[in-house]
């Protein structure tokens, strides 16, 4: 019935080609008008995901409380990495830039680059770790105090004896460090400092003055300079975080935002020639990605267009036919755009790639028709006869192929991830409309064109193709055997292909934002990868924070409780006990400083004796780390004692001056400690504003940040991190959680859609051929082609990612098209017509596959790695399906025919 319908249609078309063309043109004009008036391009990434998940609801709540978390990060670094830059230059740069950005209220809400550390200098003892406080209490308070009431600390020798006493007490309890952390780190620091002091007393004392542990204690968050600026751990990079005024990824907002930031940076950089700055963070990454896509799209579209046109000119025996195919395709794409405008009304970042897909697939339908048309003409038929025959012979294959391809795309509509579901609709409807254009407009154009001018076919080419077909079919057994081996080998390799969730791997390799993002991750704790949990009150926050450290993949966590110690009352009581003891510690005036070398040497000898015991204990119990530390300690003592033994009078004078400096530093420290011990516990209002705005929401809800222990781009790291975060609370959200959710939606949906698509495609093939064997044979090139494609991907080290997943249904469509065409022609020609099948349909498949490979393969030249990987995968996939459908399938059919005794 389908054949008779097609024959009737072909007869009508030949009689009235002008009417059909006119209808097509009218529809095109209507579609273009509709598109220009109503179709929007939405560049925002929001609303691409599907159903509303808890993580997204929580993320919205988080954004309401704290504004956009997608900060633009400015990284300030030396213009020449080998040049030293003074901290004041960095500070001037960052201060100047912050002032300029803060004025841009249209784009930026808040600019965060510095924490006021005075709070931690005043209340440092409330932030000291418990062990430090306990040790301080042990040293100063009670009958067993290491430094009993009235002790005089005269300098280094006393410090050494204090350490020796402390370690001896620890050894008596089984641990040299008195059970704190089983490490001699503290002892080694003192000894190292002492060796430095004996070599250069002034520098050693200056180092003490520079190194304030209370600055570190108070800031469990990012690394800070001494004056509170956000820096890298080595101090070579300063950071400024600018919060966008709107939480959107729309390019209409992002593009001017990034441009404004770059403009302000350029203004400030002009005044600081030693420094340069760049931008990273989500807005910069999006802007750079979109710029790369735009650039790449232009280049690859031009390349693809030129390549496809050249191929058509070379492939068709009458070069005039190529523009007719492309014109029909353009009309099909226009109709599709019109349909999208009516059905959806906009194109998203994902669906905007539909034109490329339709050019790649739609041109194939025209190639099949024109290829047959040329053969019919070459065989001496008139234009109307050639057209009727072409539609009759290729029509069933085209309908089945396009039908299965469209079904494969329509099944993607079942995906939860809305962006891809829309792409499924867009591509599915597009494929059908392109087929419609190729079955209406193209034959009409051919009829009109052929009626006017009928060129001569290039017969030598046809003859060459026939000889090649014969050669292929001469060795069917060998071809099938080689195909089987290749399939097995590539199937093994296919298992290595993984899915890469890391969106940053899609960007161009040399992108500035990517380089700075890596630098941010490597050199600071300002990770863009963080999960967050909102708590309604401090009790809930405390409970959540308690649960967090048990998870192995969670590294740092940060909340208000880090700055408001839960045990403040207990600490206040300890400080109350410490206060009188601190008052009683007496340090002599620097003027009275003495440093007796013999006494210092004796104190070191005491320490040495204890360390030898520790070394014995460490070795006996097989504790290599402790053994190494005690060995280092003994070496340092040797160095110090050697320095004392070989000291000249000038050294001794310098030591005396240094000791005076040490005492002065010690007196200042004692004074600070006494002041700190008298302070009341910190309250929320005391905290620096920068911390409050990061940790307390606009409605007073509290935030717990969870940072990953590992780089989330490592395999399995994201899954483990999100799973561990969920053990803390189901209400966890944040960029990694959303990425995980969306990746899961996409992968899971794709798998389901692919399976369903494959089943439906097979069903269509079954309905079409009505013989399971034929249906399976039609599907074979696709199945084997997909295995080959995955195998090539494994060889080439390619991974699936968010950008190239769509390649799989495309390959499914192309492969099924090929298989359907071959089998239809096989059914028409029978066993004896295998050469004709291969020569006629195989030729069309070769041309259409080459156009697809050129069209999609041009993407491989893109700088955007997501696009490039999609181009490569499609190239491999289409090439695989081409080989399996034009070599493997005909040879297999030949072998099957031979088994049934059919004449060859």
């Amino acid at each position, binding site marked *: 019935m389908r054949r008779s319908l097609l024959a009737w249609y072909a007869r009508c078309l030949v009689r009235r080609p002008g009417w059909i063309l006119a209808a097509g043109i009218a529809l095109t004009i209507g579609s273009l008008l509709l598109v220009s008036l109503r179709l929007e391009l939405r560049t925002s990434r929001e609303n691409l995901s599907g159903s509303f998940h808890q993580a997204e609801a929580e993320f919205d709540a988080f954004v309401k409380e704290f504004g956009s978390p997608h900060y633009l990060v400015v990284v300030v670094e030396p213009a020449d990495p080998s040049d030293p830059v003074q901290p004041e230059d960095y500070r001037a740069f960052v201060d100047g830039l912050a002032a300029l950005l803060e004025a841009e209220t249209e784009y930026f809400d808040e600019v965060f680059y510095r924490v006021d550390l005075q709070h931690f200098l005043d209340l440092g003892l409330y932030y000291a770790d418990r062990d430090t406080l306990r040790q301080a209490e042990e040293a100063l308070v009670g009958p067993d105090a290491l430094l009993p009431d009235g002790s005089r600390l005269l300098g280094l020798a006393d410090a050494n004896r204090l350490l020796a006493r402390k370690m001896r007490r620890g050894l*008596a*309890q*089984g*641990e040299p460090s008195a059970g704190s952390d089983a490490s001699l780190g503290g002892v080694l620091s003192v000894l190292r400092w002492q060796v430095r002091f004996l070599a250069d007393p002034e520098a050693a004392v200056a180092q003490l003055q520079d190194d304030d542990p209370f600055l570190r204690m108070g800031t469990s968050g990012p690394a800070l300079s001494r004056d509170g600026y956000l820096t890298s751990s080595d101090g070579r990079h300063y950071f400024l975080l600018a919060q966008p005024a709107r939480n959107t990824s729309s390019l209409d907002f992002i593009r001017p935002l990034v441009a404004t930031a770059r403009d302000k940076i350029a203004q400030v950089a002009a005044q600081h020639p030693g420094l340069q700055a760049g931008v990273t963070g989500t807005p910069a990454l999006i802007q750079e990605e979109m710029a790369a896509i735009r650039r790449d799209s232009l280049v690859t579209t031009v390349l693809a267009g030129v390549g496809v046109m050249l191929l058509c000119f070379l492939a068709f025996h009458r070069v005039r036919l190529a523009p007719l195919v492309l014109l029909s395709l353009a009309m099909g794409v226009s109709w599709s755009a019109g349909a999208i405008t009516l059905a959806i009304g906009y194109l998203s970042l994902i669906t905007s790639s539909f034109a490329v897909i339709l050019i790649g697939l739609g041109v194939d339908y025209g190639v099949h028709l024109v290829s047959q048309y040329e053969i019919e003409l070459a065989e001496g038929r008139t234009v109307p006869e050639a057209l009727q025959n072409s539609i009759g012979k290729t029509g069933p294959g085209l309908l089945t192929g396009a039908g299965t391809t469209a079904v494969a795309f329509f099944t993607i509509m079942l995906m939860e991830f809305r962006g891809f579901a829309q792409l499924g609709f867009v591509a599915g409807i597009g494929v059908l409309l392109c087929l419609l254009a190729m079955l209406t407009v193209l034959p009409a154009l051919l009829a009109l064109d052929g009626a006017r001018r009928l060129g001569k076919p290039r017969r030598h080419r046809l003859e060459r193709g026939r000889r090649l077909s014969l050669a292929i079919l001469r060795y069917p057994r060998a071809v099938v055997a080689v195909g089987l081996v290749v399939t097995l080998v590539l199937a093994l390799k296919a298992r290595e292909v993984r899915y890469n969730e890391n969106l940053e791997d899609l960007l161009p390799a040399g992108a500035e934002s990517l380089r700075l993002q890596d630098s941010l991750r490597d050199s600071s704790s300002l990770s863009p990868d963080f999960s967050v949990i909102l708590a309604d009150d401090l009790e809930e926050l405390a409970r959540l924070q308690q649960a967090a450290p*048990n998870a192995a993949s969670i590294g740092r966590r940060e909340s208000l409780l880090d700055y408001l110690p839960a045990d403040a009352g207990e600490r206040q009581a300890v400080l109350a006990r410490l206060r009188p003891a601190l008052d009683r510690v007496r340090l002599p005036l620097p003027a009275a400083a003495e440093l007796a070398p013999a006494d210092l040497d004796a104190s070191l000898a005491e320490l040495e004796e204890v360390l030898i015991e520790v*070394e*014995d*204990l*460490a*070795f*006996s*119990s*097989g*504790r*290599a780390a402790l*053994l*190494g530390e005690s*060995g280092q300690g003994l070496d340092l003592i040797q160095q110090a004692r050697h320095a004392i033994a070989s000291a000249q009078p000038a050294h001794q004078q310098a030591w005396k001056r240094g000791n005076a400096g040490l005492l002065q530093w010690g007196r200042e420290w004692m004074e600070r400690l006494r002041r700190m011990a008298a302070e009341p516990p910190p309250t929320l209002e005391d905290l620096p504003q920068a911390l409050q705005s990061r940790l307390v929401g606009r409605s007073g809800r509290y935030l717990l940040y969870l940072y990953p222990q590992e780089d989330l781009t490592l395999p399995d790291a994201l899954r483990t991190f999100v799973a561990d975060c969920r053990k803390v609370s189901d209400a966890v959200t944040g960029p990694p959680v959303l990425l995980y959710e969306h990746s899961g939606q996409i992968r899971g949906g794709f798998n389901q859609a692919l399976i369903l698509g494959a089943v439906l495609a097979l069903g269509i093939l079954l309905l079409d051929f009505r013989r399971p064997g034929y249906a399976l044979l039609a599907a074979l090139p696709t199945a084997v082609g997909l295995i080959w494609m995955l195998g090539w991907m494994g060889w080439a080290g390619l991974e699936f990612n968010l950008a190239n997943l769509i390649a799989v249904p495309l390959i499914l469509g192309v492969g099924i098209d090929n298989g359907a065409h071959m089998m239809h022609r096989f059914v028409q020609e029978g066993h004896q017509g295998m050469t004709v099948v291969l020569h006629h349909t195989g030729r069309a498949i070769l041309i259409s596959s080459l156009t697809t490979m050129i069209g999609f393969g041009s993407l491989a030249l893109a700088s955007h790695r997501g696009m490039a990987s999609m181009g490569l995968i499609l190239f491999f996939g289409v090439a695989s399906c081409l080989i399996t459908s034009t070599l493997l399938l005909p040879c297999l059919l030949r072998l099957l025919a031979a088994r049934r005794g059919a004449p060859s």
Partner: protein
Amino acid sequence: MNGPAPVVPVRGGRFRRWALAWVLLWVLIPSGSPAAGRDILFWAPYAPGSPEQAAGALEEFARLVEQAAGWPQGSISAVYRNKVDEGLSALQELDPGFVLVPIPVHLRYNESLGWTPVRAAVLAGVEAQRYSLYGPAGSSVDWLSDVTIEGDAAYDPVFVRTLVLGGKYPVADDRFRPTSRPLSAVRRAARGEKVVVLLDEGQRRALASLPAAAELVLLAESDWMPAAVLVSRAGATEADVQQLGRVLDGLGTDPTATDLLATLRIQRFEAVDPRAIKKLQRIYSATEPPPPQADR
């Protein structure tokens, strides 16, 4: 009906018969072994640390075990002995139900004292135990008859001769010097003195971080074996043995317990491989009979 009225309603005489049966069962079946039967002796000759130093951690361990086992609070105690004779005395005086011993001690006393391994202990930092003999650079096993062998496991010459030297080198007993400070022996051997040092696996790994390692050469090493075993003695009931085994299995996954075990230098407890122990015992007993000792 004579006698006092029943406090609870009864049906005929059935209640009283059941009650009597329960009382009899209660009296006749022991409700649990005596408290001393559950005590644990940690006996590691020449191991570092003193019983006083270990007391705090062992007390915590005992409380943790009894809590996890559901035994009454204070029903068990754990003590540490690091001398051979003190360990033997503790067996007599404290009569513990369980003993944790390094493998050489187990092999030496297992048959005479009738112990039954319950669990193997995996020590911190090493998955399995191996004993090694290191001599000064240039030395060889032929040199052994003329040197002293020093190390914490040198208290058992039979163990060294059979399991470390494979029964091929009959070094006299008087050449063995047990010590709890093997590092000094390492240094002397590295200086070229006639000392061979016997190291366990943890010490062997620690040796690699010492400069002295370059001056020493490996002379012999044993096969891999469990580091230590927790054994039950005759006084322990089967129920207690089973219960303690379950508790020890669970300690490795409890963060509080693993921290405590770490202070005892234990990583976790695991099932004993009886065939491996039997094989070690066969080698140990093949050439020399174990010294006669009486338990009780």
